[in-house]
């Protein structure tokens, strides 16, 4: 039997990926341009025995999925910039309490309510540093619907593996455009299930005592073990502690479990990098315009290449450094004022050769926009 082919919006590809990964609890508050995610899940989740709750706001939405995750559910919420701002406190709680959850931010123009129906990639740094305190976070993105599906599955896998919130940072163009999606068969993509404790009922369970491989098995909250969960710095029992050794150990653990794995968490795609004079670095919908330009100019003899990043945080510095080592110029393409640019400059050997090609006016950056900027960088004029 042939595979199921669908013609869908990016938001629906995200929904299908989440269901494939085992999503069974969603709480959210609809907001453009993410609304189709809530709309579709309000139909599909109950049909599969899952739960969908429309909450009073985004603060409650993230809190609800954190609670549901603790009880053993695979959880997600979706929002856009304004809602993502409201979620930052609970996001920090999920980081601190190490609760697996997936947060979709379909970016629109900001700040504040900004420009709801137009494209932007202005939340890249909010995803990294929106919540306070030293912490690490995983943020993923994609530029086409097949990848949106796969990276959504990946988001669930990484959140379960590392017990961390994972942010899916999509944008209005990818979310709303329709294109082909071939639904993978069950088992075709790897899915990570919740690691549950082997500790039996009646035996003490230490919720924050890592196994030798660093992973923390979970016990469904409200099940056979009683334990404490808090946003305060806590010990292996989950109770608050101000013991310097405990504080230091916990903060190092929270950051190192992700930052030490930056290389293995790096998801990216390479196009014509082997002999590229100029390497474009792009992500999300900007990568579509960048790839269009690369393929078009290759046919005319220009040695352009594209490094499309799917993992934004932790920043894949090694990948960027190695892929850009031979380039005469590196051009970061984004629809913001250069939010990923400083990380690229820090990663490469020649930061003076890193440039920004951007648009911030709510209009989707075109291949011609990028090309014009490239010509100026090369001293060719317009």
């Amino acid at each position, binding site marked *: 039997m042939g595979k199921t082919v*669908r013609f869908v919006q990016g938001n629906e590809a995200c929904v299908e990926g989440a269901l494939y990964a085992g999503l069974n609890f969603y709480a959210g508050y609809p907001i453009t341009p993410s609304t189709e995610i809530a709309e579709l899940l309000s139909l599909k989740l109950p049909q599969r025995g899952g739960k969908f709750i429309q909450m009073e706001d985004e603060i409650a939405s993230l809190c609800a999925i954190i609670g549901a995750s603790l009880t053993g559910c695979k959880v997600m919420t979706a929002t856009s910039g304004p809602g993502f701002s409201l979620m930052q406190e609970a996001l920090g709680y999920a980081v601190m309490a190490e609760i697996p959850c997936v947060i979709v931010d379909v970016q629109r123009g900001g700040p504040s309510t900004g420009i709801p*129906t137009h494209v932007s990639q202005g939340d890249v740094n909010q995803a990294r540093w929106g919540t306070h305190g030293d912490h690490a976070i995983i943020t993923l993105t994609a530029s086409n619907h097949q990848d949106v599906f796969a990276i959504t599955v990946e988001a669930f896998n990484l959140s379960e593996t590392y017990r961390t919130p994972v942010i899916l940072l999509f944008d209005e163009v990818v979310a709303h455009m329709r*294109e*082909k999606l071939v639904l993978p068969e069950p088992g075709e993509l790897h899915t990570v299930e919740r690691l549950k404790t082997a500790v039996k009922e009646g035996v003490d369970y230490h919720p924050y005592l890592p196994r030798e491989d660093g992973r923390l098995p979970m016990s469904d909250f409200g099940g056979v073990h009683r334990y404490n969960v808090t946003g305060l710095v806590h010990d292996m029992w989950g109770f608050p502690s101000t013991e310097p050794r405990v504080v230091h150990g916990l903060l190092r653990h929270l950051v190192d479990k992700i930052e030490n794995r930056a290389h293995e968490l790096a998801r990216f795609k390479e196009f014509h990098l082997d002999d590229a004079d100029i390497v474009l670095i792009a992500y999300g919908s900007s990568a*579509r315009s960048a790839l269009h330009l690369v*393929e078009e100019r290759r046919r005319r003899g220009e040695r352009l290449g594209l490094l499309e990043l799917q993992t934004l945080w932790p920043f894949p510095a090694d990948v960027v450094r190695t892929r850009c080592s031979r380039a005469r110029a590196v051009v970061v393409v984004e629809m913001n004022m250069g939010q990923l640019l400083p990380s690229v400059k820090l990663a490469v050997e020649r930061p003076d050769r890193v440039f920004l090609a951007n648009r911030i006016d709510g209009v989707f950056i075109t291949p011609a926009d990028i090309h014009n900027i490239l010509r100026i960088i090369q001293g060719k004029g317009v």
Partner: protein
Amino acid sequence: MERCRLVFSGSGGQGVITAAIILAEAAVLHEGLNAVQSQSYGAEARGGATRSDVIIADTPIYYPKVLQPNVLVCLTQEAYNKFSGIIRPGGLLLTDSRYVKTQRKVDALQRELPMYRSVLETIGKPIVFNICMLGALLSLTDLVRPESILKVLESRVPADFLEMNRKALELGMRLGESARV
């Protein structure tokens, strides 16, 4: 096939966005082609000229918007005024003769067809105006087979309305046939 870029424009409620989705879906699901469809959202989509972009190709499509359409469909005067200038030289401009008075020659094949009037006279329901337009387009361009559009309609349209849509498609195809060069 040669890559085809289309812009469907009109006013909210005429079904130009639905028509674009149906065409692109037919290309992907029943012709084995690649297609992307996008539309303008927000204030400009409510009243005023609404627009939906479609690209159909047998190669990958990266940049999903249309800057210079090979095929431009304008179902209102406002849409024509706003978009007629962007058509690619040598392209096809399809307008409805009741709604649009073409004012200047563009460097394109211009076809003004009485789609709205024909739908009202033979079917009596303006709701299938957009499907009639799709039929005319199929005759003028051979983009996808009519059977592919019908398959999409069967999956999207309630059974009671299917016959009306089929008639509108055939009506459009006849109008388009008569205007072929």
